[in-house]
């Protein structure tokens, strides 16, 4: 009993885990910019990654021979430890520390998931649906945009959700090379041995990941009215 009481007392008397005073005072100056910076890093990275992954995925699903090398290269990118990748990127001449190398790294990380899900999504379209489309005189382009991509959407969005959650997590490490974002709070907190900053950064990053996931889920439901209709 007394041991436990001592321990509780210890924790309470340590520098406070959450210093509400500090949070209030630095809300606009530190926390909000870090949060905005994190949204920026994550959003831009996912957007760029999608711009690359969708066409590459479509091409890979058409020219099957291209798919293994694509997954090989993106698989290697995916497996490099993030800290190492940041270090490698800033050692490249012309790449300064800051948001740019962070975004490059985050894009590199999400390519594998996004490309794989694009291909899997297109593969999931029933062959008879495509046969009927072709038999009615849709062109290849119309089949892609009106049939294959809409039907691949749930699997593509599932990939975007995983990629986004992953990116929001990894983006915190970007602060190590001055990328900005919530990682700034976490690294500062570690350096100053000030837990409030670490917790604020971690909690906000987690909340952002969960919110982004739910938003994307909602978006996917909205874009797929036919999934709500079920056999009566």
């Amino acid at each position, binding site marked *: 009993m007394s041991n436990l009481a001592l321990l509780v007392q210890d924790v309470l008397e340590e520098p406070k885990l959450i210093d509400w005073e500090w949070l209030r005072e630095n809300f606009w100056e530190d926390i909000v910019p870090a949060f905005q910076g994190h949204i920026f890093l994550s959003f831009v990275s996912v957007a760029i990654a999608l711009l690359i992954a969708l066409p590459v995925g479509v091409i890979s699903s058409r020219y099957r021979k291209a798919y293994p090398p694509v997954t090989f290269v993106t698989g290697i990118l995916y497996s490099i430890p993030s800290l190492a990748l940041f270090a490698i990127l800033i050692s490249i001449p012309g790449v300064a520390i800051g948001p740019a190398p962070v975004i490059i790294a985050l894009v590199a990380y999400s390519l594998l998931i996004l490309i794989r899900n694009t291909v899997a999504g297109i593969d999931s379209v029933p062959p*008879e*649906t495509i046969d009927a489309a072709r*038999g*009615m*005189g849709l062109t290849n382009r119309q089949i892609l945009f009106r049939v294959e991509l809409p039907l691949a959407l749930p699997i593509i969005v599932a990939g975007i959700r995983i990629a986004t959650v992953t990116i929001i997590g990894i983006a915190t490490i970007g602060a190590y090379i001055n990328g900005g974002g919530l990682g700034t709070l976490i690294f500062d907190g570690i350096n100053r041995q000030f837990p409030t900053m670490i917790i604020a950064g971690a909690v906000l990053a987690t909340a952002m990941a969960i919110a982004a996931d739910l938003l994307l889920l909602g978006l996917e439901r909205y874009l797929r009215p036919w999934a709500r*209709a079920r056999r009566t």
Partner: protein
Amino acid sequence: MIEFRQVSKTYPGSDNPVVTDLSFEVLEGEICVLVGPSGCGKTTTMRMVNRLIEITEGEILIDGEPNTAISGTQLRRKIGYAIQQIGLFPHRTIADNIGTVPHLLGWDKGRIRDRVDDLLELVGLSPGEYRDRYPAELSGGQQQRVGVARALAADPPIMLMDEPFGAVDPITRERLQDEFLRIQEDIKKTIVFVTHDIDEAIKMGNKIAILKQGGVLAQYDTPENILSRPDSEFVSSFVGADRVLKRLSLTRVGEMDLEQADGGTEGLPRISDRMTARAALSELLGSGQSSAVVEMEGENKLLTFEAIEALTSTAEQSA
């Protein structure tokens, strides 16, 4: 009219053609059924008409023009296409599905909507109830109806149908076949119809093309002639040992020449004049009686074994 002229198809890297030197004509407004065992090239033959598969040798003429005169996609928009797996777009409503080809052809919205409603009526689905539903909400039979409506959408003179009633239970299939034959009486499309089922071929076809392995035409004729005068061992074995019975299914009791029944008909089974002679024979055998009563144009007529037998022999003579 569709005319096959010495059409052959060989896939690259293969020595054996899947369709060999095929020549026949499908007349305006007729249903031509391509039938044969699996691997006989019947689906390939059908798909060469709208160039989903390109011909290796020979040509297919549509109303005298080679089907290569226009691009494949332009050609396909002019030819109705219905397949066994239906292939409805799961992400489009029933109305959008049916309106696919009219939309591609640039019809205006009002015209498409009217056409969709007409077609839903035609295939027996209430437009108000089904127009805005998604395919997953419909039963298999309803989906096949929509598949047929979609193939008819732009009122193409030619239709290709690959086992369009294949994915439903036998009772529904029978009903869909009857309905389609009723529709065809009005719309008079030129149809290439693929099936592996000889009974469906006999029922649906004005002409039947029996194909054997390698896409070789074994016989091309009316159902009556195929049943009464099979050209070869292959055809007679394909149509089956019960071909005499199958011929009976081509005639309805109401079309038979029957004697007047004068009294003494109590206890005899009663048979509808809509029944096929084959079904009537089965009824008669099952009843244990030697004759049955048919009510035709307000009169009672007598259906006997002799009358049915006469039917098979007249068919033989006329053949």
